């Protein structure tokens, strides 16, 4: 009943593979290779394709007809019975970690035609395609968990090994992910969104001249101003002063963030780790925290003679509270089993702190740092607007006062960009330090 694929039938096979979940967005080249190792088979209605506990050798892809796929009860699937039709993929038990036997019994309900793909051959093929191979395995994993309702503990697919997979450069990986992204509808929807937004801005202000929008600076005015070598209102990409303001703001945030981290993380760690410390310090902490940072502005000006330090102080304060609080929460959320395990293994208190508490709290600490830098910018801008010289907040406010409206928008946009970049830097630092978490999240398929 098995017949090797003839040349013409290969196109049919590729078409069916395209309709499957695991191979749905694979490249033509890969699909051709898979079609090359696939064999066709036909089953009459009522025929048994395979039994549970048999050897898990082939993966099946349904070309036409219908089959019934029944998991054996020990497997613990939420729905044991599943009907598969064209595009359905089953028989993948061999792809799971530690599985060599069939998990289900499959019977054809109608006359059914399938493609059979040898599991080991497929794995070998995927291993030789480092970028696509991993992606196909991910899709298998998703399908197995989502469509076949297997418990997650059982549904772990094998890792593709091989030198190519290990040494994939991050550049090629990024490029590959980029190519996948471009093939999805997302970038085009994004363009639609921006077009709508910018279009509305342009039309409302400059074309239709809607009542309240009239006085706003228009899109073209702003863009022209921003890109002009000799701007009417004094600031554009070509003016050195523009970069001075950016540098000033960034430098202030950097100082505030640095101080807040250096002070906030240890305080947070202690607050979480030592109950006595928390009992002494937390009440004062929580009394001061609800006071909005900007309510401190006058007091800060009084305390710090120079407004420069007052501004940095305000940004620091906001950051500090966020960092310390999140660090504390991070320590408190560490599962006590880890600490107990470390104790069993003979670690003393300081070793537990260094090897368990600190790395364990790191994810929370970095969330806190990302919040902290956002809050830092928030406070800095406000402080600069109220009492600063130089800086983007100052630019925005004085542009308003001096009736240089387009510059307001330039300032806002610059703020947005710079704020985003600094936030991303923190996130990247976090990803770098917590490689284990990145990998864990990647596998958990969020």
């Amino acid at each position, binding site marked *: 009943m098995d017949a090797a694929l003839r040349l013409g039938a290969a196109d049919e096979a590729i078409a069916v593979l395209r309709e499957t979940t695991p191979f749905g967005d694979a490249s033509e080249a890969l699909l051709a290779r898979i079609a090359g190792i696939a064999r066709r088979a036909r089953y009459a209605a009522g025929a048994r394709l395979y039994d549970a506990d048999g050897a898990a050798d082939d993966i099946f892809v349904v070309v036409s007809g219908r089959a019934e796929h029944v998991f054996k009860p020990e497997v613990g699937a*939420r729905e044991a019975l599943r009907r598969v039709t064209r595009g359905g993929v089953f028989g993948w038990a061999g792809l799971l970690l530690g599985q060599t036997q069939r998990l289900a019994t499959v019977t054809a309900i109608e006359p059914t035609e399938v493609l059979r793909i040898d599991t080991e051959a497929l794995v070998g093929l995927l291993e030789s395609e480092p970028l696509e191979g991993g992606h196909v395995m991910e899709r298998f994993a998703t399908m197995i968990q*989502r469509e076949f309702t297997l418990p997650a503990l059982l549904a772990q697919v094998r890792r593709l090994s091989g030198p190519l997979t290990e040494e994939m450069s991050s550049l090629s990986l990024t490029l590959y992910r980029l190519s996948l992204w471009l093939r999805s*509808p997302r970038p*085009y*929807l*994004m363009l639609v*969104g*921006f077009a*709508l937004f910018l279009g509305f801005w342009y039309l409302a202000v400059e074309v239709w001249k809607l009542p*309240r*929008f009239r*006085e*706003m600076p228009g899109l073209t005015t702003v863009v022209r101003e921003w890109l002009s070598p000799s701007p009417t209102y004094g600031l554009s990409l070509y003016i050195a002063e523009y970069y001075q303001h950016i540098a000033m703001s960034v430098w202030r945030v950097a100082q505030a963030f640095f101080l807040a981290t250096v002070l906030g993380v240890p305080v947070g760690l202690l607050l979480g780790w030592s109950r006595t410390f928390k*009992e*002494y310090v937390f*009440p*004062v902490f929580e*009394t*001061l925290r*609800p*006071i*909005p*940072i*900007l*309510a*401190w502005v*006058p*007091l*800060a000006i*009084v*305390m*710090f*003679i*120079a407004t*420069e*330090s007052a501004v*940095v*102080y305000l940004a620091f304060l906001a950051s500090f509270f966020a960092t310390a609080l999140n660090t504390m929460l991070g320590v408190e959320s560490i599962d006590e089993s880890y600490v107990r395990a470390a104790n069993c293994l003979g670690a003393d208190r300081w070793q537990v702190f260094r090897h368990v508490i600190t790395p364990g709290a790191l994810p929370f600490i970095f969330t806190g740092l990302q919040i902290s830098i*956002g809050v830092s*910018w*928030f406070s800095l*801008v*406000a402080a600069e607007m*109220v009492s600063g010289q130089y800086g*983007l*907040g100052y630019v*925005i*406010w004085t*542009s*308003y*006062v001096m009736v240089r*409206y387009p510059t*307001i*928008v330039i*300032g*806002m*946009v610059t*703020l*947005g960009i710079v*704020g985003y970049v600094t936030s991303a830097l923190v996130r990247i630092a976090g990803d770098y330090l917590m490689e284990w978490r990145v990998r864990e999240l990647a596998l958990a398929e969020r």
Partner: protein
Amino acid sequence: MKKMLSNPALWRGVVSIAVFLILWEIGARSRQWMAPEFFAPFRELLGAIGLKKDYLPWIGAVPAPSVVLASWIAVLVDRSYWQSWYMSLFRVMAGFLAAMLIGIPFGLMLAVSRVTHGIGFPVFEVLRPIPPLAWVPASIIFWPTQETAIAFITFLGAFYTIVINVLGGARSIDVRYFQAARSMGSSRWDIFRRVILPGTLPSIVVGSAVGMGITWEVVVAAEMISGGGSQIGGTRGGGLGFFIWNSYVGGSYEQIVIGMISIGIAGFASSELLRWGGRYATPWLKAR
């Protein structure tokens, strides 16, 4: 009650706050605390590291707690003080409510439909890093009255947080709830009403509590900026932020501290109110 009194944690907290107040009192009275002249060598050290020399706060310049308390008792009978409370609270509530009314549906829309998400989310994410206060001038130009301008800013402040939390909440609803609902024959609307909405409620509550804090920040700042900037006519703006700024300008530093503490209390109270309301709306979380 007895149990509470014998709790060592409570006493430690009281002790630390007492110590804090005492240090503050001493520092303020002595006027020497970290005064510029007093700490000269330390400041040189800071300068050497590269940080600005005046980074040490002159705590001596801050009014002492005893003075603040006395002034506060005097202010309690002043009508304009309570008016400031009312104005700030009103702005916060208005802005916050608006943020919820618009933010929650917007967030749900993004969460439910992949197309809307693809269109709306990138624009949202690009606008988010711009601090709400940076919108103040644009807001003043655009909106007819100062009040609406401030309201818009407070709205923005809370809006971002609420949307992010709704999105996060919707995404974390266990997919099994959907499957269970579907297998029992629910329509799409049913699923929305009975699975998605309640499922996102906890995140909405958390988002609201954080959003409330941000709203206060923004209100205070907006009040200070628009009240403090003499370019805007009409100082009847009021509000606690304005109260603080005015006190600074007027030179009564005790009132600055009064204003700060008042806002702290108001902010804390409103967050607690929200959290209480949240617990009422999500009784199933209590069981944990």
